């Protein structure tokens, strides 16, 4: 290779080396490292905004010129109009508050109970072995399928929505906290015991702080699940809530209202998601000082 690439005969001695088992036959083409050109931030932001504006503009134009059926798809101007009505004379705040409360209660209840349950598996291998198949069974059932049943038992009020949201978040938290317990390095426990620690001390000073990152990591997933639980609960039977608004508008073919309710719901979802992400980063800082 060297010989072919360069006019200098650089290395006669090497090529004649008798012990060399592999001889160079292929000439290697010269490659350079592929260079990636990153767009500047302004170009990225402009494109991002452009996509949004483009979609809205096209949609409006297509609906006005009857390229798409405005009855089925509605159009941005009609949605804007409905949005104003929804907030001024409609039930916007009642619905938002209902959905928000179901979600938060379910989230808190499910996460707290689930994490404690998961951590408790550290205490006894037998106890964990006994309870585990039930937890896995609960994991494998799509909990949302139980929603009609839960609504039946808990009634059509706030309680049933909280129950659905709790059912969804509880199992995830349990399994995640248990995963943390299983990831404990036995040497860490060894160190504690070599210092003469009791089981309770190991739990408090090692197991809980060690598993906290796991418990925290599941918060963002859980807020989404709790919201889904609340919405599906409202689909099945409810008098309030954004989920009910979407369902009701769909059934009456008020597509603009469906869009409005979906939009408001998505905004709520993103705000809650962002809040939990912020909480998460705060907790992460807190637990590691």
């Amino acid at each position, binding site marked *: 290779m060297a010989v072919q690439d360069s006019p200098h005969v650089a290395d006669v001695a090497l090529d004649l080396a008798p*012990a060399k088992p*592999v001889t160079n036959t292929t000439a290697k083409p010269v*490659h350079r*490292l592929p260079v990636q050109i990153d767009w500047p931030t302004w170009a990225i932001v402009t494109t991002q905004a452009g996509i949004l504006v483009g979609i809205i503009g096209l949609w409006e134009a297509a609906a006005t010129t009857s390229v798409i059926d405005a009855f089925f798809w509605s159009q941005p101007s009609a949605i804007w109009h409905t949005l104003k009505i929804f907030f001024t004379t409609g039930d916007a705040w009642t619905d938002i508050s209902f959905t928000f409360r179901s979600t938060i209660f379910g989230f808190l209840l499910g996460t707290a109970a689930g994490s404690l349950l998961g951590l408790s598996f550290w205490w006894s291998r037998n106890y964990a072995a006994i309870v585990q198949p039930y937890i896995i069974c609960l994991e494998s059932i799509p909990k949302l399928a139980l929603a009609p049943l839960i609504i039946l038992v808990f009634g059509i009020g706030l309680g049933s929505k909280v129950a659905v949201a709790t059912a969804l978040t509880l199992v995830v938290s349990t399994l995640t906290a248990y995963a943390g317990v299983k990831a404990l390095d036995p040497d860490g426990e060894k160190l504690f015991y070599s210092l003469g620690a009791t089981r309770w001390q190991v739990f408090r000073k090692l197991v809980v702080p060690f598993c906290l990152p796991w418990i925290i990591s599941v918060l963002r997933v859980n807020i989404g699940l709790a919201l889904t639980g609340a919405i599906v609960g409202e689909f099945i039977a409810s008098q309030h809530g954004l989920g009910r608004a979407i369902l009701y508008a769909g059934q009456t073919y008020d597509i603009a209202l469906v869009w409005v309710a979906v939009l408001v719901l998505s905004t709520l979802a993103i705000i809650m998601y962002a809040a939990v992400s912020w909480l998460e980063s705060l907790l992460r800082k807190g637990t590691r000082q």
Partner: protein
Amino acid sequence: MLSSPPKLYVDNVCMTFKTATGVFEALVPVTLSIPSGRFVSLIGPSGCGKSTIFNIIAGLLEPTAGKVLIDGVDATGTIGRVGYMLQKDLLLPWRSVLDNVILGMEIQGVPLREARERALSLLQRYGLSGFEYLYPSTLSGGMRQRAALLRTLLFDTDIILLDEPFGALDAQTKLQMQEWLMQLWSDFGKTVLFVTHDVEEAIYLSDEVHVMGTRPGCILESILIMLPRPRVRTSSLTPEFIAIKEHCLNLLTASAPALPEAA
């Protein structure tokens, strides 16, 4: 030999990185001239830019100034010219040892059959027979390093760069691997550039040791090791060896920043 250019010539290479806090000088002009078939070591404290030099020679990093010449031809910024073994073995867990070893040839477009044939005979000769079809996860640290080294050798370049290949091994395995490497080097006659933390290892293996300093990275001194070859373990007991070792350690301690130091 005098008229021919060195196998590898690192010509006044500088490297500065832009960071949030300003400009960081990783390397001030570094020049290395390495004749064909030499075994050359770089030693120095962490952060002295050893890995930066390697990345530049391998073409993975463009130097701020200076050139890399291979056989007298400008090879700055071209990849696939030298065999580069990184610090970790980086064996791909989804490939058998054999298929890991031929990765370089495969990327260069050598037909699989031919590549496997070439690799098989080498694996058998250099202590990996019986391991060809196993997956890396079943191998010990020493075996993994052997596979990684053979992968580098089979890439079939005249120059190979070894970045602390034995750093993660336990003391005994490390000694065995050094013997094994010496064997390979004398069989293949490659030009080797070797980075290590271990002064004794550097002297024991090399024809020439470059001691590096830090902040910014530079070469403090180049020391020719005139000890006779083949070397044996007892070479390290000779007064010459000890003298060189002490000299190196003195250079390193003089240049090292006062401990302790936050990472």
